[in-house]
């Protein structure tokens, strides 16, 4: 057994390459038992890759890596959990056909038989899932899935807990609950390393922060030191927001592009949207806000025809499209940039964009002059150099650019963005919001569904706030007070 004084993680010159790309480059890091360390960095900085090495899911190409006293440079899948390392994935990986308790049970099998039941009970209780333990994992919502992910990790009784972007997609009281959960886990004597974009989480929790950029360690220090370091501010937060980039040069108005009247929708017995109405004019940006479970994503799906409309109607360019199939709405010019991007990972960037075109003629035209793709490349010049890369290999921010580009390639009249900024660094979010404003300036109407409340309100012409499937506010962002916002998110009345 390892002595108590031995560090739980020792990384010396850890490097990982994929083909010709170096994702993690010569990283040194020591973590002592009982610490709570945060790792930050912009998208594509190599955080997730570094985490996968520490979790034993991949092996380093070079360097030394010892975790929990074991050599992790030659380790098989499934071993890390037995050595005391538990990883909660950014995207939950539930076993959907098993119950919540069975999901957690499986993790406990790494423990001696006599400790299993207690470990599972404890994990369920700490993560607040005791009341849901006989539900099917496939029926859980996002927050519950994140809790399940953590419960499974806890049931391993690990020495080292790795949390990969567990706060992504959460806000308001959900976020606070999650922070409290991580704090409880740490207080129970576990060493925790977390990768996070949500600044608040790092600030509230971490004792020490490591900043990665382009796969190398830029610096490490206390949260205060890191957030005051000018290098970090520049690479991570971007220079002060360029106000003019978010300025609207066209004042929206004129014809109505998208109109919804009294829309209700849901899944099975559950009613998710109740009597929702909205209207978007040409070149207008409508921001849809609301806490998790308020029905934002369901609204996007209902607009796009992926969820059946129960009552009410959807009008597009003066035409009733309530019963029109998804692909046909897309062709008429109602585009969706879905949550999680849904790119074709095996195809190149160019091929992904090409699939978004209305016709092949548009693609051939790129060799001449006029093409919808030219607009995409002018909006995101970076995509030109990424053209021949596989979409699945890109960083989160780059993938989101491709997803936006693919939707724009169809020359839509209305474009819906579902969770545009999810899991992305602030600098990338700013870049994407600038693009959204540019798209609206071209005269395309925008429906922007966002977690990033303040930034999304800054670019909005109108906002719509949902609470448990009902519209609680609809109007200009300036008329919507901070108080009302709190009420919609935190549920206080």
């Amino acid at each position: 057994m390892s002595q108590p004084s031995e560090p739980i993680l020792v990384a010396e010159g850890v490097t990982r390459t994929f083909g010709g790309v170096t994702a993690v480059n010569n990283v040194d890091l020591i973590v002592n038992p009982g610490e709570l360390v945060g790792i930050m960095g912009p998208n594509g900085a190599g955080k997730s890759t570094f985490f996968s090495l520490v979790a034993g899911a991949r092996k380093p190409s070079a360097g030394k890596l010892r975790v929990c006293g074991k050599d992790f440079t030659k380790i098989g899948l499934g071993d890390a959990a037995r050595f005391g390392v538990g990883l909660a994935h950014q995207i939950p990986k539930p076993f959907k056909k098993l119950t919540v308790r069975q999901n957690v049970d499986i993790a406990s099998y790494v423990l001696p038989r006599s400790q299993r039941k207690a470990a599972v009970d404890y994990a369920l209780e700490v993560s607040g899932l005791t009341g849901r333990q006989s539900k099917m994992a496939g029926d859980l919502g996002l927050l519950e899935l994140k809790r399940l992910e953590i419960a499974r990790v806890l049931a391993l009784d690990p020495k080292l807990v790795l949390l990969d972007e567990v706060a992504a997609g959460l806000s308001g009281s959900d976020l606070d609950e999650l922070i409290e959960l991580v704090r409880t886990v740490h207080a129970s004597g576990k060493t925790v390393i977390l990768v996070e974009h949500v600044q608040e989480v790092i600030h509230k929790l971490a004792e020490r922060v490591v900043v990665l950029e382009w796969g190398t360690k830029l610096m490490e220090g206390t949260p205060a030191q890191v957030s005051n370091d000018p290098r970090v501010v520049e690479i991570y937060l971007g220079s002060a927001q360029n106000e003019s980039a978010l300025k609207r040069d066209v004042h929206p108005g004129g014809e109505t592009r998208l109109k919804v009247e009294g829309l209700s929708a849901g899944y099975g017995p559950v009613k998710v949207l109740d009597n929702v109405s909205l209207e978007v004019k040409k070149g207008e940006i409508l921001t849809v806000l609301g806490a998790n479970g308020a029905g934002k994503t369901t609204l996007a799906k209902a607009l796009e025809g992926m969820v059946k409309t129960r009552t009410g109607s959807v009008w597009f360019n003066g035409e009733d499209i309530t019963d029109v199939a998804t692909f046909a709405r897309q062709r008429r010019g109602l585009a969706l940039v879905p949550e999680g991007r849904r790119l074709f990972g095996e195809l190149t960037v160019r091929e992904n964009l090409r699939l978004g075109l209305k016709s092949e003629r548009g693609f051939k035209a790129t060799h001449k002059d006029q093409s919808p793709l030219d607009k995409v490349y002018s909006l995101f010049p970076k995509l030109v150099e990424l053209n021949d890369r596989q979409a699945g290999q890109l960083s989160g921010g780059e993938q989101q650019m491709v997803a936006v580009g693919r939707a724009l390639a169809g020359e839509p009249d209305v474009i819906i963005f579902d969770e545009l900024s999810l899991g992305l660094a602030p600098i990338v979010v700013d870049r994407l919001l600038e693009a959204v404003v540019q798209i609206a300036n071209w005269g395309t109407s925008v429906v922007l569904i966002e977690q990033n409340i303040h930034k999304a309100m800054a670019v909005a012409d109108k906002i719509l706030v949902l609470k448990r499937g009902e519209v609680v506010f609809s109007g200009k962002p300036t008329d919507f007070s901070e108080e009302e916002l709190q009420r919609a998110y935190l549920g206080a009345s």
Partner: protein
Amino acid sequence: MIRQIFGFIAKFRDPFTYGTAVVVAAVLYLTASSLDRGQQNDLTSLFLLMTLALAWNLVGGYGGQFSLGHSIFVGVGSYATAVILTLLGWPLIPTMIIAAVMSALIGLLLAYPLLRLRGPYLAVGSLGMAVAAYGWMINWDFTKASQAYAMPKEAQVDFATMYQFATVLLLIAIVSIVALVRSPLGLRLVALRDNELGAASIGVKRVRTLLPVWALSGLLTGAMGAVYAVQQGTLTVDGTFNIQFSLDAAIICVIGGLGTLSGPFIGAIIIYFLRKYSAEYQNYALLIEAVVLVIVVRFFPAGIVGLISKGFRAIVHRRAAAQK
């Protein structure tokens, strides 16, 4: 009220399953003599089809590994029975057990390389092995190559005994599969199917989990092959190492419900009677089966079991809503 009934069923689910299986099997076993020979033969065929589907479902349904190599186990089980009886002259039942064990060992041998493959690659890999085994057998003089291999006299039992073999085998299959599926190993198996990466990160090792499952599937399929050999009386490579066994098992499970306990039973009954009664339409028989398969896959992708449980849940939900 409904909730209490469900709670009761959940609590006694395992004893209930085992108890029912044992009682039904005992009744079938003891009433063997009251059936005529045609019925005994028909039920033997049906039970063997069920055993085949149950064994395949372990790997293909619960494990999500679409094996097209299960014909190898049928072939090994049947030919091993015939060869041991002929050359060593052992008693019938120990011979059949040894044949099943040989098939289980073959299962381990095949699974070890196959488990490095996933999805369609595993299906094609196992198909390749089945084709290779067929090719080997059709040329192997030791088992009379492409000529028929007659079972020796010791294997000639009456229809009632044959039917009892099939009944006992089916009972063993049910009990061992329920035990495995409800055990930690069974949970790990489903976890690997639902999300391999998620399973690995909580300590589930793929090969270690899947090897015993393939071994059990091979054991049961091999035993089915042994009883099948007794039923047939004469073995041919075409009749035993035939890909059709893997396809039948897969079709039965898809129609009944993949990865469910009752799916293979329902599927086997449907396919068995469909074939029995459509046989008189000759060329149209295959067409009818194909149409049934397409309809099920299109409209009830979770199989007949999925359809039933969906309807059941709808009723319970309506009751609960009415109570509110």
